[in-house]
Structure formats: structure tokens, C-alpha cells
């Protein structure tokens, strides 16, 4: 459930309805999102948005790790035009090692 996507806060304003709203950018488009549940958010932060509400602030360090793995997979894909299934399992565990060490401490 719960289609939530990350977006970057471009500006914050409080219209006369009383609730803090932010203009959040998602890859080229921007939409007003309600920030009432993240009072500490500032411009430049990344937030997770679900049905027009920001529910969580993205942890930059964690996000960077995941995006670097995604990039690595992307590079794999580009290198072979299409990554073949039997190549993938060999690569993946190595890429996970740093995160799994983080994951153990994060619970």
C-alpha cells in the first residue's frame, strides 16, 4: 500500500488555511504538499510524500548509499546493454556489504 515518493522542498508557506504547505519537486514537476506533520522541515530537505502529505524526512546519508547502489546497477545495465540474470546475483552481495553492516545497527 502507500505509494510514497521522495521530493525536494523548494519553498514553504502558510496560506490562510493555517497549515504549513511546501512546494515539493518530484523530477521536474512540483506540487503543494502539506507539511503539518514535519514542522522541522526546511527548504532543501527531501521528504517522503503520500497523498499530498509529507510523512517523513529522508536521511541524506542513508539515501546516498541506496542511490549509489542503484547507480551501480544502472552501470551494470549499461555495460551489457541489458544485465543478464545470471550475472546479477554475483554482484549484489558485494554491493550490500556496507549497508548490511549499517542495517544491523539501525534497528
Amino acid at each position, binding site marked *: *500500500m502507500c*505509494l510514497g515518493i521522495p521530493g525536494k522542498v523548494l519553498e514553504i508557506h502558510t496560506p490562510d488555511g493555517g497549515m504549513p504547505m511546501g512546494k515539493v519537486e*518530484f*523530477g*521536474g*514537476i512540483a506540487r503543494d504538499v502539506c507539511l503539518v506533520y514535519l514542522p522541522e522541515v526546511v527548504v532543501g530537505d527531501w521528504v517522503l510524500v503520500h497523498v499530498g502529505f509529507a510523512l517523513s524526512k529522508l536521511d541524506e546519508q542513508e539515501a546516498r548509499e541506496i542511490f549509489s547502489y542503484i547507480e551501480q546497477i544502472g552501470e551494470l545495465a549499461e555495460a551489457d546493454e541489458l544485465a543478464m540474470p545470471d550475472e546479477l546475483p554475483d554482484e549484489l552481495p558485494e554491493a550490500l556489504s556496507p549497508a548490511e553492516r549499517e542495517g544491523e545497527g539501525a534497528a
Partner: protein
Amino acid sequence: MTTPPDPLHVSCPAPRTDQSTVQLAHGGGGRMMRTLIEGILLPCFHGGQDAGRRLPPHDSAVVDVGGTRLAFTTDSFVVSPLFFPGGDIGKLAVYGTVNDLAMAGARPLYLSCGLILEEGTPLDTVRRVVQSMQCAAEEVGVQIVTGDTKVVDRGKADGIFINTAGVGIVPDGIEVHPARVAAGDKILLSGDIGRHGIAIMSLREGLQFDGAPESDCASLADLVSQLTRLGARLHCLRDLTRGGLAAALIEIADHVGVGMELHETAIPIMPQVRGACELLGLDPLYVANEGRLVAIVEPGAAQQALEILAAHPAAHGAAVIGEVTQRHPREVELLNAFGTGRLLDLLSGEQMPRIC
């Protein structure tokens, strides 16, 4: 006390959904629309004909009139709102029919224009729409030579409904039809997908966002006339409309009995369309377009076809996106960066924004 529910008593009611009336989904370009066309319309209009000689349906019919091959088509336009970023119903009405003629390889010549006007629509709006139609017609080089006008009570039409029918001539040596599609053919896409559907959706209440793309509403006639330089190596053309890239290819694959394999990473999608689709939970492959086509060509012609597309202003990021195959006939498979594939299937009706 928490007792786990007894798994033996699980059940689910069989609903009696109403299948006896027209639903919006019947117009959505998906499976229900096909069911309506194949279940009610085609048997009526084609009954009595030798089914074996009946070609798979295409955007236009090509008929022989005294030795000249005439392409003939019709389309109706009910878009709301009437004016949207990148176009309006008038432009759509001209380009839509012109494009259908072009998909048969024809040079579009003459259009008819049937207007259904809702009582209370400002005359100024009508004027703007028909002026837009004339502009579009002049741009393409077709003439609107006949028409009809009706007025219906307030509430019976969304301002204006337009029907256009068109005729064009198919030059000798050009045989562009799904029946020519063969295993090994390459599939090319003229540009990035999803702009029109997202442009329209962004105007709906509650779904607005900044940076929404404009509709890609455009004529493809000139682009097609360039592609016909490929001669007999150009097998099939299909413009993408409702139901998106997926519907266009699934229909061809299904009617012709071939399989197709598409490479997800090769399909161009602009970031604004991707962002909007992610936000609303839509699949860009099924989002409407109004100025894009797929061209299916002999493998040896793919490079030249790509060059023709890349050089033309109506193409935006043209690419080879897949090939026709003997494997899994009637199915279109989308291969992703992981190397696994998923089937593309027609949706029941139009996509809805979703939260889950």
C-alpha cells in the same frame, strides 16, 4: 483474547457488476473498448464477409476506387476541457484524423467536420475552435470540404463534440499495414511518451501541479511522408492515442499473431511525465499521446528509419525500442534493466490515480 480467524470460513462474494450498460471504460482504449468493438460493432458491420479475407483492423481503411487506393477514416473528439496547454479540441480533431490517414501511408487530402454543440456554449468558443481547425488544416495541407452542425440540449455534450472523417491517397509501392509485420522487424518510437495524458490530467481538480508538460498534439503526416522513403521496408505504422504505447503495440501483436519484446530502458520518457506518473501512481506506457507513432520496419531499415525520425521536428528523442519475435505470439513483453520481463496487458479501462 485474539483467536486467529478460522481459515476454513474465508470467502468472498461474487459481485453482480452491471455489464448491460455503457461504462466510461468502454471508451478508455483498453480491454473493455475492444470487447465493445469486437463484440457488438464488428460482427454487425462485418457480418457476411469472408472472415479469412478480413485484414486485422488498422487506423484507416484502404479501399480501391477505380485503381486508386484511397485511405478513409473517421474519429470523434470529446476531450474536456476544450482548451489545454499545447492544443485544443479543434487541433486534435484535425491532427487525429490526419494521423490516422498517415498511418496507412496515405497523403491526407480532405476532411469533413461534424459539430455537435451544446446549448449555451459561447459562440466565441465555437469560433476559436473552428479557427484552430482551419489553422491546423492549412499547416498540414488538407482542406475541410464538408460538414454538419447539430445543437443539443444543455447537458448533453461537453460544450463541443467534433467528428472528423478524412480521405487520402496511398501512393504506389507503399503497403503499410499490420498484416505486413513479421518476426525480426524492429520497432521504433518517434518520441517521448505520455505528454498528452499528463497534460490533460494535470488540469483536473486536485491533480494540478507545476511544470506539467504540454500536450504533444501534432500532425505526423509529414514525418510519415519522409518514412515512406523506406518503400516496402516500412511495414507498419501506428499512432499512439488512448491506451498509450502499450495499447498500440498489444493490439498489433494480438491481431497479427506475433510476439514483441520491448526494452524498458530504451523507451524515452521526459522527467516531468515520469515525475507526474510516480506521484499519481500511473504507468507511463498506458498514458495517452497525440503526436507520437511507432514504426515497424525490416531489420535492415532500422538505422535509416532512425535517422529519418531523428532529423524531423515532429520527433522528440526517437529510438529503437524493441523487436517483433516468433516467441510468445500475441504477447508483448517488456524487458527491464534486471533482464527480467513482464507482460504488457491491456487495462480494463482508463488508469486512475492511486494511493496504494
